[in-house]
């Protein structure tokens, strides 16, 4: 017998979370709700631990938005866990997000959740899961169809994350700012002026960002999401939700069988990993 489909709900408003769960139980009795959590970080933890088939993510949640959670799940999804879960976003009103969802054909439901729309969504997810299961039965483990499904989900997310204005809508960032030419990092009582051209890569570390140059590393108190709009995205490539690397500092890029890309740098021994979401950046000309 085929195992029951498993779902995760992430919604910060308790009444709405409970309601989504009971509606899903009513419309899709075979669905097992394995976790119902209140914020983005908890959603990532629960998703990686429970490996559900479908996740319902609210967009605006404390700590980490639904979009950030989706990215984290896709990047940290274990290689042996099969296909990524189907993602359904839940939102009350996000102008940019809705445009992006339409554009990247990502499934979403609007709050207040209407029965009709939720039924449609359930049917769509069921169909997707069925075709996935068929692929899994034909060949054990990660079959070519599963890989195709994975690629499809990844490209959806990629489109979504690259959508104009979406990052701004999710984090309410500043209007387009002048690009940084110098990183001002405090070291003890001194401020070190680090030319942007000397930076090999930036790495998020909790609320800080590590700035790595060939000679040394600095810590700045600016979140990576605030730093990103200040960097020239043709020179600095985001290769992971927590890593931004200067493109001309990359020496080689090697793709492994799971789809991740391993990078070596010029003039530095550190190795970096580009997640599957950004692997498409590395192609031979």
């Amino acid at each position, binding site marked *: 017998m085929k195992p029951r489909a498993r779902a995760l709900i992430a919604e910060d408003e308790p009444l709405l979370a409970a309601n989504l769960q009971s509606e899903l139980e009513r419309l899709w009795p075979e669905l097992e709700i394995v976790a119902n959590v209140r914020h983005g970080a908890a959603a990532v933890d629960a998703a990686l631990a429970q490996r559900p088939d479908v996740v319902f993510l609210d967009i605006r949640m404390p*700590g980490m938005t639904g979009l950030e959670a989706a990215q984290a799940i896709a990047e940290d999804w274990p290689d042996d866990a099969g296909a990524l879960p189907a993602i359904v976003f839940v939102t009350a009103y996000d102008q940019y997000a809705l445009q992006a969802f339409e554009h990247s054909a990502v499934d979403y439901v609007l709050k207040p959740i209407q029965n009709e729309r939720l039924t449609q969504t359930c049917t769509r997810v069921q169909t997707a899961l069925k075709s996935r299961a068929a692929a899994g039965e034909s060949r054990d483990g990660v079959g070519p169809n599963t890989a195709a499904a994975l690629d499809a989900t990844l490209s959806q997310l990629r489109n979504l994350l690259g959508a104009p204005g979406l990052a701004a809508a999710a984090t309410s960032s500043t209007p387009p700012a002048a690009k940084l030419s110098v990183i001002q990092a405090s070291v003890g009582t001194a401020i070190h002026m680090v030319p942007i051209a000397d930076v090999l890569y930036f790495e998020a570390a909790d609320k800080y960002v590590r700035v790595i140059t060939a000679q040394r590393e600095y810590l700045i108190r600016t979140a990576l999401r605030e730093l990103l709009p200040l960097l020239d995205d043709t020179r600095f490539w985001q290769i992971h939700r927590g890593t931004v690397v200067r493109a001309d500092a990359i020496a080689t890029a090697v793709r492994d069988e799971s789809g991740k890309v391993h990078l070596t740098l010029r003039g530095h021994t550190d190795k970096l990993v580009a997640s599957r979401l950004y692997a498409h950046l590395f192609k031979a000309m």
Partner: protein
Amino acid sequence: MRTAGRHDERLGQNRSMAANPLDLTRPGEHTHERRSRYAVRALRSTAYGAFIGLCIFGLTGHSLWTTLVQSSCIGLMCWFFIDLGRVPASKWKHRHAAPGTPEADSHWPGWPLMMLVIFVGSVLGFSTGGTIAEWITGRPMIGMLRGSLSQTVALLLSSLVPALVITYWFYSREIIAAHEATAQTAQRQAAENQLKLLESQLEPHMLFNTLANLRVLIGLDPPRAQAMLDQLIAFLRATLNASRSSSHALDAEFARLRDYLALMQLRMGDRLQTRFELPAELAALPIPPLLLQPLVENSIKHGLEPKIEGGQIEVRASRQRSAAGIDELVLQVRDTGIGLADTAAASADGTRFGLTQVRERLATLYGGQAGLNLAQADDAQGGAVATIRVPIAALGEPITRPANATTPTA
């Protein structure tokens, strides 16, 4: 935000122009519009010339055709030299003005200099206009220097006086048009601001989430759903009325905040605690409706919503004596959210609009006496605290509470 900035700039320019009506150009006007207004003035001047010609014809009985051509030509040429002289004269007059200011763009040199321009312009206009008319009609005009002194003076006056009157007429028309443009821009600006304010208060995200909760509650707990709907209605009514009434009592303000926070509490569950502190002797003091609303919204949006464990919002009114010995009403909205340090990025949009709007209202109503200050809370609980101070004397007469108003609770 950027559009608003541009409007503000333009409004600023208009304000300075209205106070100092030097400019014959209108805000946002294109070169071709300015050019077409030159053409209109040229035609008008010619027509006024022709009219004067008709009068002269009526008085003297000279040949109609000759008189008309002569006076039209003189009218046109007077316009030409006066309008031509006006531009360099005003350039010279405003030569020290900083570029970009209305003075620097002005084409109005002020009356004393303009009189000189009119005098020279009409002398030149009279003689060239006369020459042209002579060339068209073949009949000589009486030259200014050929006749007697009294004849010269009469001829000169016949073009100088109309030139003066017409210049004054054009000038006042332009001033009126500029004032109208200013008023229109200001009106549009006010409407835009009000729309933006409404939009920020009836934020769709808040509204739809509240409705989603309401929809769920109708099935689960109808009496509570009804209570919630009442609170939503009170909130909506207050928001829509806020722009119309100029003040309400402090306890009414607290009641509206309580409605709003009750809605938020239903959404956020135990992630939101609230506390209100309103001493009875302050309850009747009048304040602008929903003055505190944007501060409470900011506390929710930028303080507690991003914080996983949530926290508390405290709205407090107190009476304090300032350092200068003035009795002040102090209104505080304090949250135990993530504080100001981490909202650097967020403060760029919503917070700033909310704060600006509160500051503007205070400035409009109480001048420099009132103020708003936003600071990091300095105790262990952290978060942010917004403080409004208004001298009690500036508030006006206490509002006696209508019988059906809610009783304030501490």
